[in-house]
């Protein structure tokens, strides 16, 4: 929780299996319009050699952005997470996440998400991560991203507008436009070139698992919505 700069996004495993969406069979190859060179360019940048800043906020290489000595970022609490997802994905509160299709995930997980619970005698706001905080956050984000997909498939797309959701491939320009749109909605900024590369590269992983554009955009949404930058302030 010390770094202020956006962390490199991780390539995520396919997580949609539990969401009830059937993957097309047989899958169309994703990125079929992308050249081999382009695919190489979309490999997530290797940051393992990035020199860390020391505790006094001093960069170890000239030109490297330094980190703050203070850097006390805060994890968004339950209502903040929900409101951000509602705004970013143009959803109502009851469209974000329901446990078993019935119970509001935010209400059920209010304490792991940093809230108080009179019913459970939790009067103080937990200010540290709990064992199930990550699970609760991911559940919120994944369901919200997926619920947006369902709505966009059923009617005129609102968020996933730049690619053909039923198709298995997209042009680089379409992919970049979709990533840019999601970044603006979720992070309120344009994506960095390396982020575009990383998220475009995710399409190959989705294709390997037999997914299509619908799966890919959902995971891009999920990756952005669960990034350090999106979850802290």
């Amino acid at each position: 929780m010390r770094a202020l700069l956006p962390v490199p996004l991780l390539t995520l495993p396919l997580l949609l299996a539990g969401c009830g969406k059937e993957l097309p069979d047989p899958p169309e190859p994703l990125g079929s319009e992308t050249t081999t060179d382009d695919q190489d360019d979309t490999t997530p940048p290797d940051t393992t050699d990035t020199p860390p800043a020391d505790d006094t906020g001093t960069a170890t290489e000239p030109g490297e952005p330094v980190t703050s000595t203070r850097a006390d970022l805060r994890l968004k609490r339950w209502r903040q997470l929900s409101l951000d997802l509602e705004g970013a994905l143009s959803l109502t509160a009851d469209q974000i996440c329901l446990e078993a299709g019935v119970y509001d995930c935010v209400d059920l997980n209010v304490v792991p998400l940093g809230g108080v619970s009179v019913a459970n005698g939790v009067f103080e706001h937990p200010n540290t991560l709990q064992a199930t905080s990550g699970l609760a956050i991911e559940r919120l984000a994944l369901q919200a991203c997926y619920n947006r997909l369902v709505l966009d498939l059923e009617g005129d797309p609102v968020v996933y507008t730049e690619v053909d959701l039923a198709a298995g491939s997209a042009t680089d320009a379409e992919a970049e436009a979709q990533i840019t749109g999601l970044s603006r909605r979720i992070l309120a900024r344009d994506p960095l070139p390396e982020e575009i590369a990383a998220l475009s590269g995710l399409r190959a992983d989705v294709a390997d698992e037999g997914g299509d554009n619908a799966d890919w955009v959902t995971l891009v949404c999920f990756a952005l919505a669960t990034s350090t930058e999106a979850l802290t302030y």
Partner: protein
Amino acid sequence: MLGLLLLLAAPTAEARPEATQLFCETYADAPACINDVTTCTQCHDTSGPPNFNPYGADLSGALDRGQAFEAALPAALADVEGLDSDGDGASNLEEILVGSWPGWSEDLEPECSAQTETTNPDYRLGGYDAAFAWRRVMQDFCGRSPRYEERQAFAGEADPEAAVSELLDACLKSPYWKEILDEIGVSVVQPVGPDSDANLLGNWRWDLRLFAYATSGGRDAGDLLQADYLVVEEPSYSGILLPIDEPRSDNEAYAQPLPPEHRYGLITTRYSLAMRVMFSPVPRNLTSHYYRELLGYDISRSEGLYPIDEAGIYDWDAPLDVDDVGAWQEGCASCHTTLDPLSYPWSRYEGIDLEGSNTGAWLEDRATELLPTTEGYLFGEPVDGPAEWVELAVHSDAFAATVTEVFFRYLMRRGPYTCEAEEFEALWSGLRDNGRDVEAMLHALVFTDAYGQP
């Protein structure tokens, strides 16, 4: 393992609540002694006594066991002043005088170290960053992140700090902040049971509404302890809070039975009296709760001890033990010499009345056989009755500092760093001197480096 070793190495370790005051008699000007007593963790591990931190272990080793503790401690304090118990490079005395902890090397607080380099394209490091503060204000008080278009617009603001202030004004009126005031109120009121006006033990919704009302709209937060009005939400679930002088229905009269002249804010709601007085003639839980939550002193942690020697017949300070619970005993008296006199002024308030209809009522003759008067003590000063008690309380530094800290901790998820102590004191002294207006304090808070420095 270290804690275990310290425990084994200190078989004679014991909690000495009086030590927190004795420490401050020696170091009266130390920041840790701003309220005349320090905390147990000055010498003990965070888990509390008997485990010592390194400073406490050195101090324990320096004590002359042949003398009484009170007599031996000053010399032992002097003996270890030159040591560096926590090994952080500063002597114990140096740390005590600057307000860091001689037994905690991590208290060097890297967050307070100088920002020697500031090259960062996204944040203004080492100083107040209005864009960063603006985003935080939107999150903290409106509950959401700025949209892309809003960030673009803010980048073109001619007066970014004015934009921060305008945003805060708007967000303090938002439904989100009204809900958050309820949540913060939960940490102070600590509700238990159903929120029904028909509940024998009271409906804590009245308490939460009063908390939210008194800490919003530019009102005096002193009403948390002094309000003689009740607060309702009209229409229901609208978030609109209105004060009323009298209950407007039988249900409301059952929920809040006290007449205005006997109401003292959160202390005397039906919920508060039923849950914290219960059946006791000396309402210790009632006063210790708000002594902790709104005056910042947790007696169970030996905080805020101002012993009053009422008995005067033992070798130690002792209370009168009016209700014959053995509070005069030496091990009990260290807390009860503060707690009991703190509670006497509230003895006329009934807690739970299972056989009649006096739950949460004020009864002129209640407990008079034990306490003929309502005289007592707060902060070591004599007070007669609840009105004097709350008057002294709301005008105290302790009240201003505690109310400020309640909001600071909610927003920052932590207490102030030592390098923020000056800013924090300015916040609570501003609250104290400006009508205890919480929203004005929050306006000042969002312009502190503590809040707006990335």
